């Protein structure tokens, strides 16, 4: 139909609609301008209009299955005693379907290898391992594996079907409330505790693999590349990186060995994402200083030795944080902690203050001995002051990090304190009668320092960190 013909038809139809049914035909004949074809067409359209009833008036109704599984190639497909309802998702390692187990009448998640890889012996073995690995873990935060099925040569894992959405969906909507983020992270940590205790490393933790049910329960799924402890179970060739780069720990990225701490790293990335709404490596992400980000930060240390060493440790830190939410924004420092901080600051001042008398002592003693004594005090002061100020700062701004920071600093601090005290006493003795005041000061401070380090500091430390060495 030509455009102008259509326009005439339309005008005539719309005009005729305005007329009463009795005068319509006459009106059409008058306005069709002798074009009989056009008049017939309009009449036919009007008849269609009059008999159309509710045609198209009610918006289309849909079966949610049609929309949810819009990309499936056909309607429901039977596989053994399972009826596939729709595809939940797919990745390089497999396709996950929502299916119904017709024997037991329940919904299951059915995971299979992509058809192209279905005959790959290595991948089939990996899927079997995944089933066994996940089946080993009995925990409410890990999706339960029901069965490993081989139907018509295809391998399937049937597992608990989790109703809900992924953590990715939630993060995509912006930062989570801090308490909620911590509680989700704690649930993931619990799942990891169970998995790690069973000797299983997830190795591909990411928000897509964390499901949140409508009842807010957390389920970790997809132990797809999980690795069971032991050498013979490795399926990836050495040096081959497996996982999702954005959540892979540095050691995993270079194809090194993954262990519990690899999963802890991924948990840290997810916690940061929950708190900020963005991946920690995204440009411009500077999480506000808080204890919660401190936990995430420690999980994400490049050196695995500097992370929490087990999921249980992470869980403890998260639970402590959840119990004391007020710590998050305004770290309420207990008075015992205040004393400990004061102690660190005071010792730093003494360290620095003793450099001047020791300089005088150096001149009096003279020669190599004088220099050696001064250098010893200087070195002790530099190390001692740096570490103490670092601890003081950490206590103020990253309280969650403190336990760990103290652990690292303790050895060095002990050494510098001992050196400091010893060097002062020696300096005092060497100066002797030449400058009695300097000598007395050096010896007095040296003895005071020794007793302070031996007695007072352990006391303030005990008071400040009573009960929980790890915050």
């Amino acid at each position, binding site marked *: 139909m030509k455009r102008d013909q259509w326009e005439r038809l339309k005008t005539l139809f719309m005009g005729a609609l305005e007329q009463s049914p009795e005068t319509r035909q006459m009106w059409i004949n008058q306005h069709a301008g002798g074009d009989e074809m056009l008049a017939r067409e309009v009449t036919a359209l009007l008849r269609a*209009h009059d008999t159309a009833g509710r045609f198209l008036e009610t918006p289309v109704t849909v079966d*949610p299955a049609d929309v949810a599984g819009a990309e499936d190639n056909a309607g429901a497909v039977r596989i053994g005693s399972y009826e596939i309802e729709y595809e939940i998702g797919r990745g390089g390692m497999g396709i996950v379907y929502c299916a119904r187990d017709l024997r037991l009448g329940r919904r299951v998640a059915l995971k299979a290898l992509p058809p192209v890889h279905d005959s790959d012996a290595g991948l089939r073995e990996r899927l079997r391992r995944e089933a066994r690995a996940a089946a080993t873990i009995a925990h409410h935060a890990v999706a339960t594996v029901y069965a490993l099925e081989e139907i018509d040569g295809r391998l399937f894992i049937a597992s608990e079907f989790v109703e809900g959405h992924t953590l990715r969906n939630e993060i995509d*909507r912006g930062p989570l409330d801090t308490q909620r983020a911590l509680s989700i992270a704690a649930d993931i940590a619990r799942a990891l505790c169970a998995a790690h205790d069973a000797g299983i490393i997830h190795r591909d933790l990411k928000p897509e693999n964390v499901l949140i049910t409508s009842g807010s329960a957390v389920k970790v799924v997809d132990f797809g590349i999980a690795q069971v402890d032991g050498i013979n179970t490795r399926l990836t060739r050495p040096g081959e990186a497996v996982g999702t780069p954005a959540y892979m720990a540095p050691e995993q990225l270079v194809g090194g060995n993954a262990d519990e701490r690899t999963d802890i790293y991924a948990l840290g990335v997810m916690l940061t994402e929950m708190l900020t709404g963005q991946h920690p490596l995204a440009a411009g992400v500077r999480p506000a200083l808080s204890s919660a980000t401190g936990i995430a930060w420690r999980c994400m240390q490049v050196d695995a030795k500097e992370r929490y060493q087990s999921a249980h440790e992470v869980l403890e830190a998260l639970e402590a944080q959840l119990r004391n939410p007020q710590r998050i924004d305004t770290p309420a420092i207990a008075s015992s902690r205040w004393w400990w901080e004061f102690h660190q600051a005071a010792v730093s001042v003494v360290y620095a203050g003793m450099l001047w008398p020791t300089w005088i002592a150096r001149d009096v003693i003279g020669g190599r001995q004088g220099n050696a004594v001064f250098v010893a005090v200087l070195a002790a002061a530099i190390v001692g002051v740096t570490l103490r100020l670092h601890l003081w700062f950490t206590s103020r701004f990253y309280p969650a990090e403190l336990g760990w920071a103290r652990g690292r600093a303790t050895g060095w601090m002990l050494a510098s304190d001992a050196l400091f005290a010893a060097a002062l006493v020696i300096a005092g003795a060497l100066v002797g009668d030449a400058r009695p005041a300097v000598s007395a000061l050096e010896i007095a401070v040296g003895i005071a320092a020794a007793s302070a380090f031996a007695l007072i500091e352990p006391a303030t430390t005990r008071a400040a960190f009573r009960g929980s060495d790890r915050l």
Partner: protein
Amino acid sequence: MGSTTPDPVSLMPLVYDELRRIAAGYMRRERPGQTLQATALVNEAFVRLAAEKRRPFANRTHFVAIAALSMRQILVQRARARRAAKRGGEPKRVTLDDALMLSATPNVDILALDEALTRLATFDPELAHIVELRYFGGLTIEETAEAVGSSPATVKRQWAMARAWLKRAIECRSDDGADAQP
């Protein structure tokens, strides 16, 4: 809307995904085979996407226009797949759900409608668009008028015309068809 309105095609995957997600949610809550109005699905998708930090679409009608297009594509794709499955002669594939669907829904034949609508769009895209918004997006006459930027009275007339033409086109398809060919 203005020039900053993103191209609908680029937003399709986003809307499509959201519709799928919501539909999957419904499936988990409801008994299998339960149907719902597309309007409900589209509205829920709108509410969810509108809550996002960076709203990717200009306003509700802009969103519905995209959602309606998605919905049409989804349903057509599905209907085609179903037809192919039946022709493929695999008796296994026709399930109880399929049987229920056929009897329970008052929907018109989606494939026939899609075909007719595609034909209509070749000579009157505006009318085809209105049908899409009304039927697949569930917009009222007033909302449709807002979406296309004209008056409700005009849209009402256009809707009547489109409905009559489509009805004829679909009915004639089964017998001769030549009659409805414009």
